């Protein structure tokens, strides 16, 4: 009896193992894809460039040990096709391993593709795939192709995808002209009629062709470099403009995404003489509909920061001077935001999500406006910006040494 039961148990247990090592994949069978670049070719097809990590050249003992010819940390493979999945499968003709997308953290899209066709056709495959992560950063290759960006080797960060993502993260925290936008941040904006997406742009400078070679990064100043440039503004899923400098900073102020940045204000005749370092801020967007049927948006910003630099001899012990500086900072930020909003209104695309704000405050009105929001109602919005700046600290010195010189 007992033996019988044991036999049954063994049979049951062994059936569990009959599946073998189902979906088991060993590390050396995988090609880790770090970045995907998508372009549009002249004949209207998609051209994908995948950046595959060569683990042995990035990390581990072998890098120092072999001493032979150094090989690049990544390899790239290009493939043309009419849809994403087809391309992904077709690449297998060129790569000896299965492409593994779970660690892909960068998606680069060529400017031509987003201007002509938009984002809508390429995101489905990426979102549907269970391996690809939608928290991967997405950037636009400004004035170059995605494939050029993906192929370029970079110093310091050995994997170029890491370089782009980390650069975005750092500049987002330090400077505030770019946003580290993930695919999953873009998707809801694409669907929503009350907000349009913005995506950071990256551009190449230098000689793009030599960027693919190891010689490029063997110099202190690589021949081909990449930098975060502007902020791509979308309308109906298509890129309509790329805003840069203070204009893009204004967008990010209004989006409440500023983590830290600078505001330089003029002092008497000297331009940008006093530098205010923002350490924290909060932006509140309120929406209401006036009696005359026009929308009104109030943007309330409270900013806290330090004095980073004064190029003029002013006494920071004097409260009235500090109030002056605060006023100038407030005005500068306000101008910044107003010009950005004006620009968006000209482009007729609501990248700030003011539509969503109206939707929340006046759902009934929104139902009427939704269809023609971007083209009719958004450009006519009345925008009211109030900024409250506060100087928390003035650094280690109250009296600038400049005042002793004179």
């Amino acid at each position, binding site marked *: 009896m007992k033996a019988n039961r044991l036999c049954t148990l063994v049979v049951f247990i062994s059936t569990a193992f009959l599946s073998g090592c189902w*979906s088991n994949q*060993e590390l050396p069978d995988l090609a880790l894809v770090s970045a995907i670049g998508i372009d549009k070719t002249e004949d209207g097809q998609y051209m994908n460039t995948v950046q595959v990590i060569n683990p042995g050249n990035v990390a581990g003992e072998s890098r120092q040990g072999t001493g032979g010819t150094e090989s690049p940390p990544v390899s790239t493979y290009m493939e043309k096709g009419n849809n994403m999945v087809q391309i992904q499968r077709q690449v297998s003709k060129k790569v000896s391993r299965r492409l593994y997308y779970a660690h892909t953290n960068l998606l680069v899209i060529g400017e031509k593709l987003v201007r002509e066709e938009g984002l809508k056709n390429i995101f489905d495959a990426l979102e549907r795939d269970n391996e690809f992560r939608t928290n991967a950063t997405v950037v636009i290759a400004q004035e170059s192709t995605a494939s050029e960006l993906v192929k370029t080797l970079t110093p310091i960060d050995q994997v170029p995808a890491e370089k782009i993502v980390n650069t975005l993260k750092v500049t987002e925290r330090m400077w505030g002209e770019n946003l580290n936008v993930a695919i999953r941040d873009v998707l809801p904006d694409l669907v929503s009629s009350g907000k349009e997406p913005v995506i950071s742009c990256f551009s190449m400078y230098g000689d793009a062709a030599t960027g693919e070679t190891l010689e490029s990064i063997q110099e202190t100043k690589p021949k081909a470099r990449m930098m975060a440039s502007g902020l791509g503004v979308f309308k109906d899923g298509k890129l309509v403009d790329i805003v840069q400098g203070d204009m893009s900073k204004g967008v990010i102020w209004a989006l409440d995404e500023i983590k830290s940045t600078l505001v330089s204000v003029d002092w008497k005749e000297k331009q940008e003489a006093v530098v205010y370092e923002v350490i924290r801020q909060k932006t509140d967007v309120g929406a209401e509909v006036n009696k005359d049927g026009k929308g009104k948006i109030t943007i309330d910003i409270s900013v806290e920061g330090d004095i980073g630099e004064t190029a003029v001899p002013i006494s920071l012990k004097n409260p009235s001077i500090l109030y002056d500086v605060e006023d100038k900072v407030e005005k500068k930020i306000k101008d910044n935001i107003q010009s950005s909003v004006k620009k968006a209104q000209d482009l007729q695309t609501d990248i700030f999500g003011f539509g969503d704000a109206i939707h929340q405050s006046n759902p009934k009105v929104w139902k009427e406006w939704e269809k023609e929001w971007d083209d009719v109602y958004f450009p006519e919005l009345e925008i009211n910006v109030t900024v409250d700046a506060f100087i928390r600290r003035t650094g280690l010195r109250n009296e600038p040494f400049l005042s002793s010189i004179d």
Partner: protein
Amino acid sequence: MSFRLRKFFRPNQKAAEKSGHTTEPLNSSLQKNLDALNNRTGYSSDIIIRKLEIEDNKKTKVAIIFVEGIVDSRSINDFLVHSLVSDGDLQDKQADQSVLDTIADKVVSVGIVNRIHDWKKLYESLMSGHTIILVDGMEQGLATSTKGGEKRSIEEPPTEISIRGPREGFTENIRTNTALVRRRIKNPDVRVKSMTIGQVTNTNVEIMYIEGIANKKIIQEVCDRLERIDIDSILESGYIEELIEDEPVSPFPTIHFTERPDVVSGNILEGRVAIFVNGTPFVLHAPSLFVQFFQSVDDYYSRAYIGSSLRFLRIMVFLISLYAPATYVAATTFHQEMIPTQLLIVLSAQREAVPFPAVVEAFIMEITFEILREAGIRMPKAVGQTVSIVGALVIGQAAVQAGIVSPAMVIIVAITAIASFTTPSYSMAIAARLIRFFLMVLAASFGFYGLILSFIVIIVHLCSLRSFGIPYMSPLAPFIPADFGDSIIRLPWWRDKKRPKLIGTNNTVRVGGNQEPGPPDSRDMKKKTRKGD
């Protein structure tokens, strides 16, 4: 002892019983008795028979019989032979008593003297180190306690080292062992019950408990289980453990053993029953709980916070020793997306040159380590260095440089190995060693799914175990808040006032009120007045 040998012995013994040697009473003729004895023992050279004539009116013949080596020859010479032969006043002393009574009452100056009427009792006494005195014309004899012989002295227990705590360890002598506990608990309520187990070896087994604290049902259960043992030999307490444990097929031990008298004292004070076996320094105690296997004596001797955190660490580390290689295998063959990108790049760079799948690599390393460990235990101490050098070089370096295993795998195996040494109980650590291999197979075929399943199965199994009627996982499952104070944590003595509820049923309070110490109220050391004082 082998199966065949057992078969050989047992019918033989039964035949002996039938022929009347064992239970038959003694003969009145000394010569006949001695002949019978010699026949039974086959003239063994270590059984010494000394014939004497005593100085009474009849010149009665007396024989002294003992087994050389297990008796104290000095006390035989001084207190038996010398007293019998040179006592000229025997006749005066004798009065109207029989010779035997005179010897027992007036001549022999040894602590314990028992009467013997049959052969069975005679052999038992003889073999356990008593000296037998037979008198011609008497159908009975005397057994005098002259136990002795060479024995190991008390040393520091090699398997249970403590930083702070007594350095005494049990020895192979059961009487020394019970004495070590007696010395710690000076109380007449400490009870010792003796029994003989093993048809051939007749091993002395004793249970010890504290009357009034230990649960009577548990004592009864322990006695019942010991009494039903029918085996030829008991050479170590492991025999007993295997014959009385609750769940013989479970990898987890349900009976705890120790080499330290302070551990046994602590356990019987909590209401457990200790089982001493002659011939081994390892003492069992039951019932045992899962958490007990992670408790070390240092927990009780160091301050409570330290004791608690170390216990917590040990349980965490036990999980590492169970799951580390399995998790590595599952993560690198099924769940690469769960490994941080940078780490994955490093791992896959290392695995690049390795020709085996991760699970094979893990098995190679784990088995190599087990071989080294086993070799390390069995090896003569003089060549110990050789194995450590070979092990360190072969596993640590050569295997990695040759590209047979990856450095990450070496790290995993090393951490597993070190982790498995932190479990204070060897029997629990060895259970983890065994289960680890099953978990690796599960991880290689099902990934994390298999690991989670195995975890559930292990927990369910642990919860289903009982040790002498006490749930193995208590006080965690069933959850007993009052007992939680001494489980995976240890509360200070002034907070943890009760004995384990399920074990010490009769008498649970062990610490009085207001035991929490504190500074005096004022600088002149005025006594603090607290509630209830």
